[in-house]
Every structure is written in C-alpha cells, then in structure tokens.
C-alpha cells in the first residue's frame, strides 16, 4: 500500500509545475540575483578619485609644503583627488554645480568648504585633519631638534600599517553568507506549499481529488503520512539541489561540518512542510487565503531574519529577542551561521531544539484538527 500511494503521489506532485517553480526555481533565481547584487559588498571596489578644488590665493602659493602634499596625492593612477586650482568665485560655482565635492581655502589655517556632508567630504576632511596634525607634530619636533629637518621630511612619506586583522576563531565573520543562509531558510519554509497541498487533498470540501480519496477504504492517517513522505522527499531533494548550487556554483561557504548542514536542511524542510499543513488545517476558508498566509509568514520571517535588510536581524535581536526565537526562518538562518561561525555547537543545538519543538507543535496541531473530520454532505 505504501509503495503504491507513495509512487503515485510522487508523480502527481512532480507534475505540479507551479509548486516546483516556487520551491525550487524561485530560490535558485534569487540565489543568482543575490550573487549579482552582493558579490561586490565585501570587496573593496576600485576607489575613484574625488574631485576637489583649491582656492588660488597668496597663502596657498606661499605654503610650499601644503602645495607639495596636495600635488602628491593628486597624481598617478591610485590618486586620492582630482585637483583644480581656481579662484574663489570659480570654486563656488563648481561647488554649486556639483562638479566638485568641496574646495579648500588656505588662510591662517586650512579651511574646507562643502555643500553637503557625505563619504567623499569625510575623506577630504580626514585627509586635511591628518595634514594639520602631522604638521603640528613636525613643528614641535623641529623646535626640539632643529637639525632633523631633511630626515624628518623623508620619514613623513613612510606610513606604517599598525593594525593587523586577526579572525577571532577559524571562520571569518561574513555578512553576505547570512543572505544566502536566510535564502535557504526561506526555501525550507516554502515547503509549506507541499504541506498545504497534502492537507487540501484530504479535505473533500476543498478538492474533488480529496473527495475521491476519502471514499477509499484506507486508514486516513496512514494515507496522509504516506503522501506526506512523498512531499517531504521531493522538498528535501529540492533543498539539496539548492545547497549544491550555492556551494559549487555560487561558492557559498558552509564551514566544515557538512553532516550537520545536511541535517539542518532536512529539519528545515520538515518544518516547512509541517507549517504548511498546519496552516492548511487551521484555515478552513479558500485556498488563496492559505497561500497568502503562508507566503506572508515566510516573507515577513525572512525579512525579520535579515534577508532584505541585514540590520533588521540585529534590530530584532536587540529589541525583541523573543521574536527571533519564534521566527523559524531566523532559527534556520542562525543554525546555518552557527555551524559556520562558532567552534562550539551549543548555539546550534539551541536553535535546532526550538525547531524540533516547532515541528512537534505543528504535528500535534494537525493531528488534533484533522482527525475524525466527517463530511455529512458535500
């Protein structure tokens, strides 16, 4: 009996192109899009020089050292600035036309004029701050040791790198990974489409197929479990395809604990299926509403776990920690990230146990609601 139902259910589900699209093709498309949009986030993009002007006045012409410094950083391929030397009126005009990010006036001290505050302006200001601070140091060194002139100027050109980045554990923290992990979590929850369909196909008031099946002399619970296993098998396979695609085509790093990653994917898929079945059993209205609710939960869940906006995850963790433990998408995302990031499995185990509790709750909910349902007349 099992083999028969299982086989036909597989065939039946595989021919449902819409569900296959949402559970397999859609996450794959999203993975490609994520890769296109985020591949540059962690890299330092080629820095493009900032357009600035300096006002051509007497003080500037006399300040040889400043002139030299500015000239130095405005030359070559990896220059910091594109520099023009103009009159004050001209500089103002350029600034108002947005052709330059800001202009520098040398008076008693160095002054920066800008129209807005932005990254470029901050860089100019940092550069100028650094210049006058170094100048101040040079002046005080020269008063103490007037002989050191030439040597000192030579040394100004060498800047040492005093900071070394050390990863805290074997894995480097990587934000982009979280996007991909939450994508897998979303794909897992999309398993709800399968779960939903399974329940629909046992409810004669929803589909004619269910009406036909209900007349068959088979134990309903067994029937449901058999066909549900077909659903879960298909969905787990889909999630594996997604994992393989992410790992080998997009090169997403899952850490070294492959067995646990697979286990997480399986649990995630079961959560998704159970969730869908639960919604389908609870909501007795039409199918559109069921689909609406399940999309809504998985999308809002993904959003709260940072799939669209990364900081959302931290906002939730800080302001409403409970919510981050009630959100299955977040739990799954965290489970994957824990495997990658932490050396110990403590956090991972916590996330997984909550997920298992979810599965238990959904299953008992389904059982209580679906059992012994009778249809007097349809």
């Amino acid at each position, binding site marked *: 009996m099992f083999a028969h139902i299982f086989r036909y259910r597989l065939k039946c589900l595989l021919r449902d192109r819409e569900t296959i699209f949402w559970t397999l093709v859609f996450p794959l498309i999203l993975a490609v899009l994520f890769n296109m949009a985020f591949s540059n986030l962690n890299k330092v993009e080629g820095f493009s020089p900032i357009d600035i002007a300096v006002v051509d006045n007497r003080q500037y012409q006399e300040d040889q050292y400043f002139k030299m410094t500015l000239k130095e950083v405005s030359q070559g391929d990896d220059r910091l600035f594109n520099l023009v030397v103009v009159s004050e009126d001209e500089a103002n005009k350029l600034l*108002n036309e947005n052709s330059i990010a800001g202009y520098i006036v040398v008076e008693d001290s160095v002054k920066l004029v800008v129209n807005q*505050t932005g990254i470029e302006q901050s860089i100019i200001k940092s550069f100028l701050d650094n210049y006058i601070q170094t100048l101040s140091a040079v002046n005080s060194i020269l008063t103490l040791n007037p002989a050191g002139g030439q040597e000192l100027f030579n040394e100004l050109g060498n800047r040492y790198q005093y900071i070394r980045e050390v990863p805290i554990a074997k894995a480097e*923290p990587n934000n982009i990974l979280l996007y991909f992990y939450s994508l897998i979590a979303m794909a897992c929850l999309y398993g709800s489409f399968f779960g939903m369909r399974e329940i629909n196909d046992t409810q004669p008031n929803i589909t004619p197929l269910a009406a036909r099946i209900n007349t068959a002399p088979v134990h309903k619970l067994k029937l449901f479990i058999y066909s549900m296993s077909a659903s879960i098998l298909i969905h787990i396979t889909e999630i594996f395809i997604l994992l393989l695609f992410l790992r080998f085509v997009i090169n997403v790093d899952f850490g070294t604990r492959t067995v646990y990653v697979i286990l997480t994917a399986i649990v995630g898929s079961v959560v998704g299926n159970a969730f869908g079945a639960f919604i389908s059993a609870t909501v007795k209205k039409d199918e559109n509403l069921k689909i609406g609710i399940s999309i809504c939960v998985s999308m809002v869940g993904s959003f709260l776990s940072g799939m669209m906006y*990364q900081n959302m995850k931290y906002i939730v963790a800080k302001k409403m920690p409970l919510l981050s433990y009630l959100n299955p998408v977040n739990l799954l995302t965290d489970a994957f990230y824990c495997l990658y990031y932490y050396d110990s499995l403590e956090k991972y185990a916590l996330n997984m146990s909550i997920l298992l509790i979810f599965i238990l709750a959904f299953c008992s909910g389904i059982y209580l609601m679906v059992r012994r349902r009778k249809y007097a007349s349809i």
Partner: protein
Amino acid sequence: MPVFKLCFKILKKNMFLMTMYIVIFIVVSIIMAFASANEQKNLSSFTQEKRNIVFITEDSSPLVEGLKQELGKIANFVDIPDQTEALQDALYFRVVTYVLRIPRGFTEAFMRGEDVQVEKTVAPASYGNLYIDLTVDKYLNTARLYVNQLENLSLESLVERLRQDLSQSTVTELGRVHNNTGSNAYLKYYYNYLPYSLINILIFGMAELAIVFNNSDLRKRNACSPLSSKSMNLQYMLANVVFALLSWFITVAVCFALNFKKSLNMSTVYYMLNFFVFAICAATMSFMLGNLVNRGAITAVSNVVSLGLSFISGVFVPQEFIGSYVLKVASFTPTYWYVYTNDRIAELTQFDFEKFKYVLPGMLIQLCFALAFFSVAMVIAKKKRLS
C-alpha cells in the same frame, strides 16, 4: 462605460490579495527607507556617532592610555570578558563592531623602533570601523615620528605632545546653498524602494484584466455587443491607465502621510515626477507581460520580474555597491535609469531649468523604454486577437 466598469469590478474582486501585497510592500519599504536613511546619516555626517568597541590591553603604559583616550573621542568602550565565545557573541549580535587588542610588550618594542602591530577583530560591513582604523594608525604614526627623531623623549611628554597635535582639526564650512543629505536621505530611499512594490501591483492587476479580456469566448461574446471595438478598447485602456495612476497616487500619498514635513520641498516634486515617468514605464511593461502570461504564472512572473529588476539595478542595494558588469547589464532595464535619476535628484541643490537638464536624460530613457514596451504589447495583443 460598461467595459471600464467591468475592469474595476475585476480589480475589486482581487482587492484582498492586492491590498495584502500593497500593505506588505509598503511596510517593508518604509522600514527599509527609514533604516537606510539613518545609516546614511551616520555614515555621512562629520560628527560620527560613537561606535561601541572593546579595548583589550595586555600592556599598560602611558602610550596605550593615550591611545585609549584618543579613541575615546570617537568610541565608547564596552567591557566584555576576554573569552573567545563572549567576544564572538558580542560581534555577532553587534553589541560591538570592533575589538582592539594591544599585545604584551607593545610599548617597549614600539619605543625601540621595532615593527609592532596591534590586533583587531571586526564585525563585517560596518563602515564606521574605518574611523577607528584611521585614528589608531594616525596616533601611532605620529608617535613614530617623535620616537625616531627625538631620542630622549620621555613617554609622558610624548603622550602629552601627541594629545596636543591630534586635537587640531580642519575648519569646515557649509557653502551658501547647502543641501542636507541626512534629512533628505529618507525621501531618496523611500522612492528608491518603490519600483519593487509598484511593479508587483501593476503586473498583478493588469495581468488579471488581460487574462479576462483575452478569454476567447468572452471576446466572441463582446464582439457581438452593440459597442464598437474602438470604444471598447479605449475603455479598456482607460481602465488600465486609471489603475496605474491610482497605484502611483497611493504610493506617493503614503510617502506624504508618513513624513509630511520632510516631503514638502522641491526635491519631492522631482522625485514624484521621476516616479511618475517610471510608473508609465512600469505600466506599459506590465501591460505587455499581462498579455503574455496565463493565470497560474501571474505571481511567479510578477515576483521574478520585480525582484530581478530590483536586485540588479540598485533598488535594494545602492548602485555604488554593485559590480560594474552587473550595472552594465542593468542599464538595459528601466529600473536602473529610475534609480540613477533618483540618485541625481538627491545631489541637486538648486531646482532651476539648468538643473532639470541634469536629471532629464534618465527620465527620457525611461520614456523610451515605455514606448518600446507599449509597441511590443500592441503587437502581442494583435497577434492574440488574430489567433
């Protein structure tokens, strides 16, 4: 106008799902707009918000103290025990974004002129960390100058001199016409996120209409009605246009409702205009797609198209963070030009005709897209009618 009325009856029937989509999209757009605007504000103002960092030192000396004081100007120090797990947690949940560790014997080696380094561990993608890096590098490089030049400088006086040197800063002046991007960032981000919602809503509604009207039985029935096909088509078009206008209006109205004060300026008018141009483009595109899909595929198409366009052309991730080859591909989509124009509007400080010319090309390109979509839609519609 029976056809026009029918169209709105069909739309009304799908009201529930559409409203649900609208509400979800708008809530998401709003949260994202507010959050990104805040981030942008922190990123761009000269007065940096203080970052939370952990300062661990295995070496105590006036030099290290001095460095800590200097860092105190731009950072708050958080006490977290020096244990891997605790630090990992703190970085993971963004309690801190930077852990700085001064190794044992640092000062001594530094004063001897040896190559020494401090160690940092950071949470990724937090741009404010750059300022911590800069401060540490500047402090130690300046100290290095003193140490190399003056042989018998005591540590205390070195630190004192460094404190004086580093307290200097550039005078900054805001120009006459200054544009406070911080407060306008909200508008820019809100409008940048809108295409995602709008494309979804429009494809959804228009495909629904097209599917009903493309039903061949219904078309045959309509053909024998006393209404001329010209009038019928015009009414159908009109319904589509009104629907697009309504969607445009609702999304813009939400922007006003949320932040009336910030929305009352010239740039809003420009944003609205640009968004209007985009709405025309999105409407023609949806009209075209609506003629192509069948009922089962509506949600799939609307999601794939809206997400695809949004991701590659800078709706979700700002264009400056997207790789150049992706942007090249994206420049063949109207959303790219919409976001491009929005970014240009955000730069504007004056709103005369000269400046209008600066944002005009992007809008014209969108109109060209609209024209292309419309022509393709017409060809498809004609083919469908003849088949």
